[in-house]
């Protein structure tokens, strides 16, 4: 039996029909989300499917989704407390969420979740809402078979396929997928569905590697004009001149789209509202460090009153502060901020400007 062959990171083959069968099985265990392209642009969105067969358009090729995966772990806006309630700070059972299965997550998004986990789940306090949703998330990762114009994971030394952080990972090959398990849960799914899997035919692994190298090459070409992020934290910290930020801020329209779409931006604001009579609700809602009111205090004191200060703060937070406090650059190179910016601001330009300014 194939199953007995399966140990961690052992590679198997699953054909397209069986993959759909597998998804169907998984869909009975949780809400299933799959990548479906926009008809005009081909851009991928995660779409909930409840009926099979899968929609005709579904694809496990291409690159990341338009929406960041964090949106599944940390909802845009959600209640975190209702009060007063009978004397308890224990989370009520009904706050538990159903399991969900995400298919087609890319390296840049999976790594982003790992980064946000460090903030929300590690340390003295744990955000229970984030933690529960993360635990309920079953991730089937996919190799990128293309990259977008704005993708720059290579400058950060990751992508275009994930090394960890998934339950199962697929690589598109002719007739189906190579598949590996990356967690015990993933391994269990493979074991209990042994009939769907087979040993990979000769040449499939080579084909997968060829595809990967093709995307690596494309990423390098697309980003040939930009420097890598190596050494950037130190440069930003020690040499940064204000002119760079003034230049960027001059274009920024302060909409906050870049932070909202960013897979590693985790900032939120708590606010309270009345439910009825003497009952109140506390809501957590995404927030953006780019808007004026974000850090404003009583008496209009504001540590970052100018847009330049806030633009600079965004870069510092990602490439400097979090390196010191959480041990990593909080950018995975997904390029969503570039796609979304109506002023055409490109993070990679900032790297180039910083490096050029220091070189001078």
């Amino acid at each position, binding site marked *: 039996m194939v199953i007995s062959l399966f140990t961690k990171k052992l590679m198997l083959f699953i054909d397209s029909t069986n993959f759909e069968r597998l998804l169907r099985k998984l869909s009975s265990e949780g809400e299933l989300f799959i990548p479906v392209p926009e008809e005009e642009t081909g851009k991928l969105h995660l779409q909930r499917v409840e009926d099979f067969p899968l929609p005709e358009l579904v694809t496990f090729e291409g690159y990341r989704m338009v929406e960041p995966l964090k949106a599944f772990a940390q909802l845009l806006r959600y209640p*975190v*407390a209702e*009060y*007063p*309630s009978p*004397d*308890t*700070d*224990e*989370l009520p059972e009904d*706050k538990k969420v159903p399991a969900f299965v995400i298919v087609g997550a890319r390296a840049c998004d999976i790594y982003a979740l790992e980064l946000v986990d460090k*903030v*929300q789940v590690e*340390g*003295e*306090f*744990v*955000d*229970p809402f984030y*933690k*529960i949703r993360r635990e309920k998330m079953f991730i089937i990762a996919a190799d990128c078979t293309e990259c977008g114009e704005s993708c720059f994971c290579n400058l950060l030394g990751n992508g275009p396929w994930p090394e960890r952080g998934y339950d199962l990972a697929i690589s598109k090959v002719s007739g189906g997928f190579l598949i590996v398990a990356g967690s015990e849960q993933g391994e269990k799914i493979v074991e209990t569905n042994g009939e769907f899997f087979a040993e990979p035919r000769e040449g499939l692994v080579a084909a997968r590697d060829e595809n990967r190298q093709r995307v690596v090459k494309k990423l390098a070409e697309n980003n040939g004009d930009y420097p890598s992020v190596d050494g950037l934290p130190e440069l930003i910290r020690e040499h940064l001149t204000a002119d760079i930020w003034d230049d960027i801020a001059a274009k920024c329209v302060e909409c906050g789209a870049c932070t909202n779409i960013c897979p590693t*931006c*985790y*900032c*939120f*604001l*708590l*606010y*309270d*509202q*009345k439910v009825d009579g*003497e009952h*109140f609700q*506390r809501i*957590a809602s995404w*927030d953006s*460090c780019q808007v004026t009111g*974000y*850090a*404003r*205090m*009583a*008496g209009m*004191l*504001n*540590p970052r009153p100018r847009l330049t200060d806030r633009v600079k*703060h965004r870069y510092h*937070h990602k490439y*400097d*502060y*979090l*390196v*010191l*406090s959480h041990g990593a650059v909080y950018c995975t190179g997904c390029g969503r901020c570039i796609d979304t910016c109506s002023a055409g601001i490109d993070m990679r330009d900032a790297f180039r400007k910083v490096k050029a300014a220091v070189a001078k």
Partner: protein
Amino acid sequence: MKNPYYPIDTVVEDIITETPTIKTFVLKPAKPIPFRAGQFMQLTVPGEGEAPFTPSSSPSVKERMEITVLRTGKVTDSLHEFKPGAKVGLRGPFGKGYPLEKLEGKEVLIVGGGVGLAPLRSLIYALLENPAKYKRVSIKYGARLPDELCFRRQYEEWSKVAPNVDFTNTIDVEAPGWTGRVGLVTTLLDDLDVNIDQSIALSCGPEIMLKFVTLKLLEVGYKPIQIYLSMNRKMSCGMGKCGRCNVGHYYLCVDGPDMNYDKIKHVPNVFG
């Protein structure tokens, strides 16, 4: 699983008017909330929202907690309208608290301004519980006007508690009937008689005051590492999750709110 966003039901048992704009609220939470001096709480005014306050009471008192609040905006305005019996909520404690162990055997210099004496009062309680542990406890306090001095009823007691404890205060400008010292709180640092090598200074007050106190302390010979400042940033979660309260790469709610000046001295516009 614990929900750290849930405000523990709390009753306002008593309200003490300290100054025309500052009141102390005696709070009794549904269950005791132990805290270390300098840690802070998120206080909920139901429906209005939260604001961070550092308890001004003794950390040894477990059942009750006092917070001393300057009226300055939405949440604090509502609080000031409250009568005893009102219901609020508490989350916390958050942050590190004062570095009490580092103060043992030292000449402790405490410099407060305005409502900034509130957080420092819980430190004072903690120190004065066992004054012999410290070589010296010298408290300097300033407010704008005589009737803006907080906790006036306690000054005498503080100065008399032990020979190694002293308390001096000042007001910013002359006022009718005032016979004490006049001048900014920094003038109390002009002729310091502490042994600076053996000293640690801790200060809390408006940012502008913190700035001038720090400059003065450096001028008279303190090293940055000997200075702790209670910094102020907007806060929301209070526990390093919401990303709001940076001072440099520190999250004030986790690494502070009292920060060693040596760690933050390089931060541009650190005093805002």
